[in-house]
């Protein structure tokens, strides 16, 4: 067992743990927006760790580049997709948890003074 292999195994385990955390959040959090928070952040980092572990283990620069490209792509697309989905859900007036503190893009009724309706 080389140190690289040990590092790859540790990265894979950490990534799998983050994936489990994301699923736990999907089940436990109160409303859609909180679940979206749980679903995007841990899966992005967890997936980056898992793909990094794979990049340490594969042979040849071609496959390694593909895996690193997949990490970069995931880092760019995951926030974009979550943003699109949350704006669409908010426009559809998806119910919010009663413990929501601030809704910055709310139109009616205005939750804070001086905020332009969007």
């Amino acid at each position: 067992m080389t140190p690289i292999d040990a590092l790859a195994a540790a990265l894979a385990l950490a990534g799998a743990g983050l994936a489990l955390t994301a699923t736990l959040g999907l089940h436990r959090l109160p409303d859609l927006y909180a679940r979206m928070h749980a679903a995007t952040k841990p899966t992005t980092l967890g997936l980056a760790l898992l793909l990094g572990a794979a990049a340490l283990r594969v042979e040849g620069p071609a496959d390694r580049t593909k895996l690193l490209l997949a990490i970069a792509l995931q880092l760019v697309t995951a926030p974009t997709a979550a943003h699109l989905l949350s704006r669409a859900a908010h426009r559809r007036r998806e119910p919010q948890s009663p413990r929501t503190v601030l809704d910055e893009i709310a139109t009616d009724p205005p939750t804070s003074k001086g905020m332009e309706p969007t």
Partner: protein
Amino acid sequence: MTTVLTISAAIMVAAAALATAAALRRDRNLPDRAIALDVLVSLIIGGLAIGAAASSDGRFADLALILCVLGFIATATVARYLGDHQQ
């Protein structure tokens, strides 16, 4: 040792995928299901990454890259569909 760690990572990702599938069955509205599907695609990519790490096989890398793009397009399409049906 490394094998044990990799196998336990695979089991954890599989358990997460099963729990996400349960959330997908339970949630009845479309945005929640879109989120659960997004997570499920991410977990499948993670499983492919563990497969690549376990076998040192480069073919998993192609699949992971394709699924990354496909998952984003799917979520963006659902978001557009939700936005079009607001009124």
